[in-house]
């Protein structure tokens, strides 16, 4: 006769009750959701109950999913540009020994310099090596752990190749990504959306998920700009872009007038990093503008510059375009001012946000962009719910018709199985996606498999052996091997999906994997408990499976 120990019953009952407790908020989703969002209002959902809901994926609640890549190579190219300027001005002084020097075209991760005089190549290398410990390369922005040998210098014939050491490159990349993450976070927060997720993915990618956002345009316009702001000295301006630019000068177009070009000093007077605040405002003509203020040191610099250059224009450059070039009319001592341009109110708002959050250290590229409208998400949830209920109902009826009382045992186990999956999803904080719902529905179909395996074995044993309880025991014993093999193999598929899948697919693998675990648990423990209890209390003479 089967043994029903107190321990066994209470263990299973406790697990089921805890599962029910943690799954319950999801069956009253709207009520609990309201309670979470407005905790001050009285809610019919009692306080002592858990109120963790299953996190819904973007495909179910609507929102924007964005995969970005930070172009770290731009930063590296920029570093080499600076380095080249410095090396050049140092080597030029030794022209007598070195002969003509020039930079060769090369890939972005290296700087190639051709030395005219092959004999003095070693001398050139020694000169270049002086830059190895130079902190010039690491302006305050990159301050952090500066390893000593940042450069690797090699030579072949009369060509010197300079690369960054791997450690330095990794450190540099990490800094760029970390800073980008921070700035992306600040900008996304400015949109005032609820619970955005911003996480690093892989080496130089950032995944941004903003639930509830109906359109990606706002987000793109906020993240698509690096917002690098500089104030540069204007050398001259012309309608022709072919200026004779010197080493420290650059030619830049104008935003307001496509026919106008500026020749500017490369080194900015002050730049956006020194801003302490930026707010949308209006100029004296009532047109939208952005007011800004500098930190004290930049304010001093800016003040001195304006004092010395009254009457001449200076350029406000945003992302390599001159947005305006006002003429300095008086000394500006306070370190604050306004930027005017052809802004709409919206644009001035956005520019203020961008300037406040700071410039991105490198450009970012949108690799993947998925926008799901809230209606589609709602519809998917409803469709998923209907499919789960109807599918579940069909399976229940089929099991009952096929196995009678034992079918009902399996059905109760199946329902507990769903509750267990919901509870685990809530507790683990896993995200439920539409494929995830499909995973649950599929689990409904497949969860009965373990029970079916056992029942079929019991049937066989009944035909063969004498005692009822023996048939059940042997049935469970013999089915175990198949149950383990069958579920381990499906689990392998679920685990591989989890590691290779992205977004919604991951959600599918999670529910599938959890479903496998819970279905084995319910089949082996819960159904068994029912069967044992049935035998013990009803003592049937004939077992009808």
């Amino acid at each position, binding site marked *: 006769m089967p043994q029903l120990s107190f321990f066994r019953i209470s263990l299973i009952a406790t697990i089921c009750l805890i599962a029910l407790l943690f799954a319950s908020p999801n069956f009253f989703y709207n009520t609990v959701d309201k309670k979470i969002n407005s905790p001050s209002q009285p809610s019919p959902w009692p306080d002592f109950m858990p109120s963790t809901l299953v996190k819904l994926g973007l495909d179910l609640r609507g929102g924007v999913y964005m995969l970005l890549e930070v172009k770290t190579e731009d930063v590296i190219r920029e570093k080499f540009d600076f380095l080249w300027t410095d090396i050049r001005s140092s080597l030029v002084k030794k022209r007598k020994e070195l002969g003509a020097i020039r930079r060769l075209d090369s890939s972005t991760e290296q700087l190639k310099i051709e030395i005219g005089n092959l004999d003095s190549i070693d001398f050139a290398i020694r000169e270049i090596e002086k830059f190895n410990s130079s902190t010039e390369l690491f302006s305050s922005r990159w301050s952090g752990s500066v390893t000593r040998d940042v450069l690797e210098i090699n030579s072949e014939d009369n060509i010197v190749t300079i690369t960054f050491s791997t450690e330095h490159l990794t450190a540099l990349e990490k800094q760029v990504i970390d800073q980008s993450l921070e700035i992306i976070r600040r900008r996304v927060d400015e949109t005032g959306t609820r619970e955005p997720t911003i996480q690093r993915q892989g080496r130089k990618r950032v995944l941004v998920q903003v639930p509830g956002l109906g359109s990606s345009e706002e987000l793109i316009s906020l993240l698509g700009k690096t917002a690098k702001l500089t104030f540069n000295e204007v050398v001259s301006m012309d309608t022709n872009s072919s200026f004779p630019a010197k080493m420290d000068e650059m030619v830049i177009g104008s935003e307001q007038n496509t026919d106008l070009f500026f020749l500017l000093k490369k080194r900015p007077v002050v730049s956006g990093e020194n801003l302490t605040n930026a707010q949308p405002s209006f100029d004296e003509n009532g047109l939208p503008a952005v007011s800004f203020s500098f930190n004290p040191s930049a304010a001093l610099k800016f003040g001195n510059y304006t004092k010395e250059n009254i009457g001449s224009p200076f350029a406000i450059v945003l992302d390599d375009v001159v947005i305006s070039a006002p003429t300095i009319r008086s000394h500006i001592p306070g370190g604050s001012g306004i930027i005017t341009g052809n802004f709409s109110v919206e644009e001035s708002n956005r520019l203020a946000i961008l300037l406040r959050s700071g410039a991105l250290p490198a450009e970012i590229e949108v690799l993947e962009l998925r926008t799901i409208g809230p209606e589609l998400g709602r519809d998917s949830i409803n469709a998923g719910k209907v499919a789960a209920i*109807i599918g579940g109902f069909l399976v229940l009826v089929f099991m009952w018709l096929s196995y009678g009382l034992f079918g009902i045992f399996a059905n109760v186990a199946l329902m507990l199985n769903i509750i267990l999956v919901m509870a685990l999803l809530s507790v683990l904080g896993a995200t439920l996606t539409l494929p995830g719902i499909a995973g649950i529905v599929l689990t409904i179909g497949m969860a009965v498999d373990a029970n079916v395996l056992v029942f079929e074995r019991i049937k066989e044993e009944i035909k063969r052996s004498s005692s009822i309880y023996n048939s059940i025991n042997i049935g469970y014993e013999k089915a175990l091997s198949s149950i383990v*093999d069958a579920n381990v193999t499906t689990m392998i598929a679920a685990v591989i999906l989890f590691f290779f*899948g992205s977004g919604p697919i991951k959600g599918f693998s999670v529910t599938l994997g959890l479903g496998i675990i819970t279905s084995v648990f319910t089949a082996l423990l819960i159904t068994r408990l029912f069967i044992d209890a049935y035998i013990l209390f009803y003592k049937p003479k004939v077992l009808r499976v």
Partner: protein
Amino acid sequence: MLFRGLFNQSKEIEFFRFSNLLSYISLGAISASIFLFFILGLNYGIDFRGGTMFMVSSTQKIKVSDIRNSLSGTILGDISISQATNPLETLSAGTFGSTDNIFIIKVEKTEGINVETKVKSLLKNSVPNIKFLQIESVGSKVSSELVRNGMLAVFFAVISVLVYIWLRFEWQFALGAVLALIHDVILTVGVFSILRYEFNLSIIAALLTIIGYSLNDTVVVFDRVRENLRNFKSLPLLKVLNLSINNTLSRTIMTSVTTLLALFALYFLGGDVIRGFTFAMIWGVLVGTYSSIFVAAKILLILNVKRDWDEKDSKAGTQF
């Protein structure tokens, strides 16, 4: 109960009577699938091809041609427009009422212009009350990675299964199971090629689930084969295999039916977004059930698994 005794057939079915014929059919289907794959290719979704997909709806009646007209003559590349229609969809359409006016527009990736903004503004001007339900845009860099990851995932799944079965059974079993899996995967790709259903990320997920399911089925049969090989040492292999398939037949049918019941509910009621996925799964359950018997067991028969297992030889498969 109603179905009681439905599978309690006392007579053994001879599964291998037509097995040679079925082997040729399977081989033919595999060749046809490979041929179709190379000739027709697959109707790749934007996940794998790159580009932008718009799912739009309107409260007003619109036609595919209306949308095509409003987008033609622009610098956008290849455009495909299809209507999301399914008579049963109305059952689940929820907020939309009906799918009559839901369209799916796919635009090729065009460098240099913002496809999303462009298409949005064009459609807003020409289609009244248009709503953008879903917009997905995948760059070529990501799409090629997704293809690679998808293939890797299927590859790793097959390899890990091979290893697992090998550890638990014998190499003949592992080979049989894996060939059955490859059979299922190729036939699924073939059916997607001929029906022109969209092949996207979720189909890869379906393929992996099919692998899991088909294997599940195969393993249950194999488990019984192993057991019967031990119990009936003098019975010819063909008889052992046939007996094992018959032993597990009612379980095979029960589990297939319950899984199919759930899948059909999803197919008809789960909405348009996962219909391709559920179609693949339904096909996979059918093919997977077939292949466990007619491919996996048949290969076991051809390879002639060794019979000298006895209780002492514990190295041959780990018995739980």
